[in-house]
Every structure is written in structure tokens, then in C-alpha cells.
């Protein structure tokens, strides 16, 4: 049908091919169209009716005309470049999360500083206020930016996280106190590990940002799902490794920083009175931080169940370790406490949670290396 029309149009003496001029006018439209019906709809929107198609362009109707136009234009489907360019330009501005993420670290450090200064009754107040401010700051930094996970939360995650953090502060002291058989009530706390973890929100956000940015670029660039997985998995590992390094650095830096303060405070008699420990085991802090980051990444990318499971496993190991030490004090159960006691004697009190968190983090890392490298995790 359309063939007849075009030959007529071409052989008509003295007239140019009318379809050609139409084609020239709607060139981009015809090149972009994915099928003839799209051209037909657009032609109708430009006011070309069946009657016009018959009278001016010598085609049976608009559909035939559209088919002719579609057939005449080469369709280039392999142009991925514009999408990539559009994706990358949007990410250069200063986002609110970049300003918010240092807040938890600053709040925690300031609180610790005040705690050192304060004495007696005000300490409890300062500690409570600091804890509230810290959780607000953490919540704010998790609500914006790359660590945001709206509507993808497993119910018990918050409980596990609080338990892990509480252990990070008090667990080492408790364990040491019981294993060494010291005087009961005076546990020493290690708030510096909490400060280190609070400061680690910054590298966590940046590493998550790096990962999501690279993954999004990979989405635009990869031809197939296998390509994407192959390119994203190393990115994830690099991001997590970067974070672990940064966190270890922070964990090593923070305690000496506050040790000076303690020393100062200690001269005033604050340190000795209230029993601050020297600072958490850096390995423990690094393992816990990595575990938390991986759990958050998994939650952000739609795997909250796995994240909760990893955190719960770490909690369970820590709880069991503490329990075994506590129970070993009872007559007849002394044997239960020996493995933990030996570990504490050999590597220090921080080794137990470091092992627990490290193992959980390794498990989550394996899971993440599979599930976060998939394209479906990056919607």
C-alpha cells in the first residue's frame, strides 16, 4: 500500500516528494520513534488527518504514512552516552548530609569533654543529655544522604544496635572485672569507643555515597547484568575496605586524644574516681563499625532481614560470652567461663566482641558481595 503511494509521489513530474519534506520537518521525531504508531500519534497531534495523508502525501491513512516515515529513517539504538552524562552532572553540589554527618562525632566528643569536667550530680545529667543529643544527631545523619533507608527497616534492628553500642561502652570493663576477679561494682566504661564510632559516621556516609555513585554510573554504563555485577562487586569491597581503614585510624587516634584530657582530669581526681578505662580495643571498634556499616548498606539496598540477622548474631555471641563469665562464678559452673577467660587473658577483653563483630561482619560482607552487586538492589 505504501509502496504504491511513494512511487506515485516520486514519479509525479515537477513535484518534489512530499513525504520527504514531511520527513525533513519531523526528522528528530521519526528518528526517536520506536514504532510507527508513535509517529502516527505525533503526526495526528501536528494536525495531519487521514484526508491530508491521502491528498498531500498519497497514503491511505496516517498509519500508512507513519509506516513509510518509520521505514525511511535509520534507527540508531546504541547511544548510551547522554544518559551517562545526565547522571554524573547532578552529583557535584554540597548536600545537607555532608554537613550533618560530622555532628554525631562532635556531639559525642563534647559530651565526653563535659563529662570530664563535671562532677557528682551533674554527671548523670550531662551523660543523659549527651546520649539524647547523640542519638538525635545520628538519626539526623541517617535520615539524609546515602545512608537513608526509608520504609526498609526490620523491626528489631534498633534493639540490636543499642545492645552492641552498650556493650562497646561497658562490655570490656565488665568482662575484665569478672575475669580478673576484681571488686564487683566498679566497672570501668570505655566511652571513647563510642566517640570513635560517632566520628566514623562521616567515612561511613562517604563510603556509602561512593558505592551508590559508582553503582549508579555502572547502571547507566553496563550492557548486561553480569557486567554490572562484575563491576560493582570490587567497588563494594573497596568501599568497605576504605571505611575499615578510616575507622581503624579513628579508633587509634581518639583514645590518646582523650587520654590527655583524662590525664588532666585525673590530676583533678576525676579520672580515678569514676573509672574511665583507657579506651576500647581498636580492633573491637573497627569490627563493630564495619558490621554497622554493612548492616546499614544492606538495609538501604532492600535487605533489612539479612542486616538484622547479622546484628543479632553478633549480639548473641557477646551476650553468651558475658553470660558464661557471669555463670562461671557460681559453684560447679567454673568450666563454662574458661574459654572466654583464656581469650581475655591472651588478647585482652576487647578480643571477645572483636571476634563476635568481626565474624558477623564477615558473614554480612559475603552476603553483601552477592546481593548488593545485583542490579535489583539499586533501584
Amino acid at each position, binding site marked *: 500500500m505504501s509502496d504504491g503511494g511513494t512511487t506515485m509521489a516520486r514519479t509525479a513530474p515537477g513535484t518534489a516528494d512530499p513525504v520527504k519534506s514531511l520527513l525533513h520537518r519531523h526528522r528528530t521525531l521519526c528518528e526517536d520513534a520506536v514504532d510507527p504508531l508513535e509517529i502516527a500519534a505525533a503526526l*495526528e497531534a501536528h494536525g495531519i488527518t487521514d484526508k491530508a495523508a491521502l491528498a498531500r502525501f498519497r497514503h491511505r491513512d496516517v498509519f500508512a504514512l507513519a509506516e513509510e516515515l518509520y521505514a525511511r529513517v535509520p*534507527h540508531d539504538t546504541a547511544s548510551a552516552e547522554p544518559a551517562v552524562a545526565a547522571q554524573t552532572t547532578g552529583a557535584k553540589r554540597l548536600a545537607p548530609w555532608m554537613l550533618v554527618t560530622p555532628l554525631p562525632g562532635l556531639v559525642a566528643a563534647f559530651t565526653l569533654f563535659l563529662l570530664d569536667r563535671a562532677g557528682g550530680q551533674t554527671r548523670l545529667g550531662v551523660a543523659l543529655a549527651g546520649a539524647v543529643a547523640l542519638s538525635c544527631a545520628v538519626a539526623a545523619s541517617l535520615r539524609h544522604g546515602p545512608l537513608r533507608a526509608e520504609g526498609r527497616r526490620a523491626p528489631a534492628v534498633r534493639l540490636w544496635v543499642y545492645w552492641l553500642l552498650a556493650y562497646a561502652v561497658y562490655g570490656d570493663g565488665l568482662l575484665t572485672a569478672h575475669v580478673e576477679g576484681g571488686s564487683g561494682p566498679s566497672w570501668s566504661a570505655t566511652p571513647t569507643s563510642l566517640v570513635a564510632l560517632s566520628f566514623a559516621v562521616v567515612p561511613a556516609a562517604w563510603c556509602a555515597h561512593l558505592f551508590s555513585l559508582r553503582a549508579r554510573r555502572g547502571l547507566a554504563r*553496563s550492557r548486561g547484568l553480569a557486567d554490572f555485577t562484575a563491576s560493582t562487586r570490587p567497588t563494594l569491597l573497596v568501599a568497605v575496605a576504605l571505611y575499615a581503614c578510616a575507622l581503624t585510624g579513628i579508633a587509634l587516634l581518639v583514645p590518646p586524644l582523650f587520654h590527655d584530657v583524662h590525664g588532666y582530669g585525673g590530676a583533678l581526681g576525676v579520672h580515678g574516681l569514676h573509672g574511665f578505662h583507657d579506651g576500647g580495643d581498636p580492633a573491637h571498634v573497627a569490627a563493630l563499625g564495619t558490621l554497622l556499616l554493612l548492616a546499614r548498606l544492606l538495609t538501604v539496598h532492600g535487605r533489612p532481614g539479612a542486616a538484622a540477622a547479622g546484628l543479632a548474631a553478633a549480639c548473641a555471641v557477646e551476650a553468651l560470652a558475658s553470660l558464661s563469665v557471669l555463670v562461671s562464678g557460681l559453684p560447679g559452673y567454673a568450666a563454662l567461663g574458661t574459654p572466654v577467660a583464656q581469650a581475655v587473658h591472651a588478647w585482652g577483653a576487647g578480643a571477645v566482641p572483636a571476634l563476635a563483630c568481626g565474624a558477623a561482619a564477615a558473614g554480612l560482607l559475603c552476603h553483601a558481595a552477592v546481593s548488593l552487586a545485583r542490579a535489583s538492589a539499586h533501584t
Partner: protein
Amino acid sequence: MFVRIGLVTDGGYPYANGESGPWCDRLVRGLHDHEFDVYALSRSARQERSGLVDPPPQVRRVHTAPLWAPVDDKGAYGRRERRRFAEHLGRLALAVCDERAGTDEGAGTDEGAGTDEGAGTDEGAGTFASGLYGLAELAREHGGLHAALRSETALRVLESACRAPGARRSVRGAAVADLLAFAHELERALRPLCLDWYDTEEGGLGSVDVCHATSAGPAALPGLLAKRFFGVPLLVTEYGVRLRAHYLATDAGREGPSRAPLRALLAAFHGSLAAEVYRAASLVTPGNAHARRWQERCGADRAKLRTVHPGMEAERFIEVGEGDDTGDRDTLVWVGAIEPAKDLVTLLHAFAQIRKERPRTRMRIVGAPSTTGDGPAYLAHCRALAAQLFPDEAAGAYAVGENPVSFEEAGGPESPELADAYAGAGIVVLSSAVEGFPVSLVEAMFCGRATVSTDVGAVVEVIGGTGLVVPAHNPKALADACLGLLGDDGRRRRLGAAAHSRALELFTIRQNVAAFRAAYLEIVSHTPVQRVAQAVGAGGAPLPFAAAAEVHVPVRWAARAEEALASVSAQAPASAREAVCAGAAAGAGGRDV
């Protein structure tokens, strides 16, 4: 005669700000001797907040479901469900990517699709319909389609379909981003599959006699499934073809600059869905010949197509039309929303030529600028052009002059009612370059006014020889036609009277409602829902004479045998309906024959 109709709407009735609201409302109110169950899909949270209109008593219940919110899942699939899911999605995706999808009917006959058991390895493998119904059955049994369509499994299936031999060239280059976006869109489009409307209990889609979908888009999906699961016949009404709207929406870039493979996938999916809807529907009623052409093009069988013109609220206009007055012979009136597609520039140029011949002529342009797009700017442009073409004129040396072209708001002081504007017109002019269904032209016909319009959209079909039609973008032709009418009072009167009677015959609400009433009866008489529970007695033995013998006779009997039909379709005891439910659950969605 009593028919229970399941009216499935998409973003329209009964929401207060729905777009197809008015005609659905008139239909429901007009058919007060039938019963309606309204199944409404809402498009946005804003629409849902706008509330529901008060339905008349013949609407038994209103079910609503949000299409904009993700469906809550019942959890992830197990291994077997995942394999079934991949198999069905693979079929659907292969059909969408298939190069020949636009031309063939691979889906097979109605009976073929109805009897196969979905999960098996049937002969219709690779077709859109079997994949779609397979997914629907899976969603009905296990839920969880939402999560599954966003999983890696779905992406892999889509990728392999795009890379399969025989896939069309435009989708072969689909990158990961395209696949993700397509899976996302697919999940949105298939949300009606996850609804809890599909049962035969009171209020379920299985309990109605006819399912009436108001578009071939998402609203038709519940209808398709009701047809598939319970054999409920489907009627599809489209005033604007959904597929065409999809093309225009992507063309206007409303969904952002998306890449060619994604657009190709989406277009192919919507095309296949429309084709399947037209295939499964017992009757398709386009609103005009233009929609009808598109539907034919998308694979609708001509025998099923029946044009039903939209009915219009016309009492005020009819009063004017019944009167003897033929209006002021020196006044041209244009009515509509002022926007570039209406091409007022051509109208003004034509008016300039008219005034050369008849200097006393005036023109009234009644309408508000459309609030969206460049309506206000276009109005300003037209005002400036009018001021340039026609200097202000005064009756005498001491009178204040005014422009022969006046721009008036509809409902303004000059014409408090739109009908008054038409009443004062000698000729009503329509100069659009692009037009769908020309509402102002029909209103002018109701008012019995002679009209001159451009040949666009459904104009010729509407006017049908009772007014003059000229090519678009042709001021000279428009002016000549107007001059010819202005000079001939008798001709204007004759054309006006003819237009009036044509409009009364074709475009009244009564006509529209009567057409749908006839359509319902025809469908019910030709394809009655055969419910197995009504043919089976208490002990499972066949019940003699449960279905009237006429049911099996392929003739029109709706008008006569009302009692027989009522016994088949409507007056089923409650216990029988419950038994149907059990039977349907056991029968895995096959037709309950």
C-alpha cells in the same frame, strides 16, 4: 431485565476529581433498573483525598484500590513459585520483545486460552496472554508479585528476553538501567493483578454479569482476569485510546528523557496489553471514529466495535435550539479553551477577509485560556493580533470605540450561560488545527446554529453534513464559507435545524445510556456467565433445567425471555454462590463451565 454490572474505572468515577467521572455518573444514574458494583483504581494520593461522589442507590458497593501505592507483599516466593514466576514472566517478556508481536495474534482463540491450565507446558507458550494470566494466577494464589517483579530473577528474565533471537532490534540494546526501569513500570502496570477483587462471593468480580472497563489500560486488567477466572464477559469503552495517550505522553517527555530501548519495551507492552484486551472483550465501544480506527489498528476485531457517541448535558442548549430565532446574522461566535491547538490566528485572518465584504460583522471569542502550558501567552498573542488587524470602531464622533473582536470569559456579564453565547450567534465557527471530540461544535448543534469548522479530529463525523467543513490552516476557505452562510438566512436556518436534530439523535445522554443498556443486554444474552454451582445440586449431582435451554441457542433473546435470563444470572441463592467460590478455588482459575 436486570443485569449486575461491574464498572471498573481508572482514575475517574467515583472520585470527585476524576476525569471520566461525568459520563460514568450519568451512565450509572441513567440505568437505575440495573445494579452496579463500582471498582475504582485511583491514580494519586491527591485524588484519593478528593473523596468520592455520592453514588445513587443502584450502586451496591464501591471498591477502591490505589494504583500509586506499592501493594503490600505477603513475603518472598519459595523455589517452586519462583520458577513458575520466571516461566510466566519469560513468556510475557518474550512476547513483548518479539519482532512480530505487532502483527500476529499468537494468543490463540478464546477457548484455547480459557482451557489451558496456566502452569503447564501448553502449546501457547511464549505468548503475552498466557504469561499474563500465569502471573495473575500466581498472584492470586501466593501474592508477592510486587517483590518478585523487583527481584534479580525478573531482571534476568527480562534481559534474556531482550537478547533472545527474534527480539526486535530496538530492544536488543537494552542496558541494565532500561531493564530496571522497565521492571519498575511493569510492576506498576501489573498492580491490578494483586488486588483482592477476584472471588465469586458477594462483592467480588466473579459475582457480576458484565464487567465494564472504562479504558483498555489498567482498568481493563481486572476485567481480563474476571473473564479468565470466572468467564465474566468484558465490555471496554474508550473515549480516548489509551495506547495513543501513552505515545503522546512519552512524546511530550513527561516521563523524562528515557532511552529508546525502554520506550520500545513500554510501547510494546502497552500495545500487547491493548491487543489482548480487545481480543478478550466481548464488545468494544469507541467514542468516535478516530478512537475506532486506533482500536482497529491495535488489533480489535471489527465485529466487536460499536461506536457509542458520548452523551452531553444539553437541556439549556436544546431550549435555544427549539426557539425560532436564528441569532444575530452579523455575529460570529467561537467557543472553547484558548490554546495554540485551536488556531485562533487563522480565525482572525479569516475574519479580516470577512470584514472586507461585510464590515458590520462582529466576532465574539468566548472562553478562558487553558491553565496549563502556554494558554495565557497565546491569549495575549491573539489579543495583540486582533488589535493590530482591527482598529477600534465607534458609532459616532462622540462615542467610545471598541474592537469588533471581543474576548469574553465564559459565564461573564455578556453571556451568563454558555447557551446565551450560542443564542446570540449567527454562525458558530471552529478553527482548530488539532481536535479530539469537538464539544463546542456539538453544543452549537444542540442550539440549532449553523456551523463552519475545520476538518480535524472527529469534526466530520460529528457534523455529518449539517454544517460546513473547510480544511485546517486555510483562512480564505474559512472566510468564504462564513460569507456564504452570512448572506443566506434560509440556508443558515435549514442547516441549524438539521444540526439540531442530528445532535438530538446522536449526542444526548439518553442516547448514550440506551446504547449501553443495549450493549449490556446483548452481551449478557450472547455470553452469559455460566456458573457451575448453579448446575450442580446439593449432592453434587447435575441439576436438571438449572440453565434455560435458550442459553445455548446463539440468537438474540434478551428482549423476550426475561424470566429465563434472570434465573440464570441474578436470582442465585446465597448458598450457590458460596459453592461457586469453592469450585473456582479448586479449578485454578479455569472457566467454570
